[in-house]
């Protein structure tokens, strides 16, 4: 299959976008855990 015509800079930028979104997902999960801990009666 032929490679799509995108520059190396494009693929590098996409890599950082994927990494940034992964970071945001982790932040969202940590915040969700904080919510759980705030709700449990023994915290």
């Amino acid at each position, binding site marked *: *299959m*032929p*490679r*799509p015509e*995108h520059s190396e800079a494009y*693929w590098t930028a*996409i*890599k950082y*976008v*994927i990494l940034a*979104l*992964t970071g*945001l*997902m982790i932040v*969202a*999960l940590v*915040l*969700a*855990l904080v*919510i*759980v801990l705030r*709700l*449990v009666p023994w915290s």
Partner: protein
Amino acid sequence: MSAINTLLPLASSILSFVFAAAVFQRYVRRPTRKSLLVWSIGLVFYGIGGACEALTGVFGFNPLVLKIWYLFGAILVAAWLGQGTVFLLAPDRWVRFTTILLVGASLFAMFAVMMAGVDPNYTVSAELTGRAFTTTWVRMLTPFFNIYGTVTLVGGALYSAWLFWRKRVLPHRMIGNILIATGALAPAFGGVLSRFGLPGLYLGEFVGVFLMYIGFLQTTVTVAQPTATSVAG
């Protein structure tokens, strides 16, 4: 409540139902792809959630509408959308196990929400919130469903995007998955803001369904591959 708190969820709801119809239509054409069916169920839940928010904006607070909103819009939607991704990416054994678990947990959540007490005199400030429940433990269910939904939906979309990135193929599908992941994160953060008493849930929901729909269209677009002749020529 301001008009924006009615119009924004109304727009989210309409878009969700249109999106659900598009995904379901695709499932009808390819009935072996169960992921499409599960995604369309999740999108119907998204639409129900938005419709309840819009109804509250127009007619004011109603305990039954709150319960329907909380069940579909706050508890079930992310997990069921994520389950669609599980159907797409996970081995059959995991699909069976997680589906049984999710169906059981969803039925329990339905029972818990319907049995929960609601303060009938609760005044909604701007956006619907679970604070109106007098049975407070029911609110503990939401983060577990949403953590599962975020991991599977956002994680699954990012994993797919990464696979396309690594192979440097199908860039439209890669971008589509990035948009789906971004869209799925928007209501997740909106929900977190809501839990901390801050506005942003309705906007997050609208941005979320809009980006996921654009992402879905990107992933399903047919791109003509150059023929051997045109590549050689």
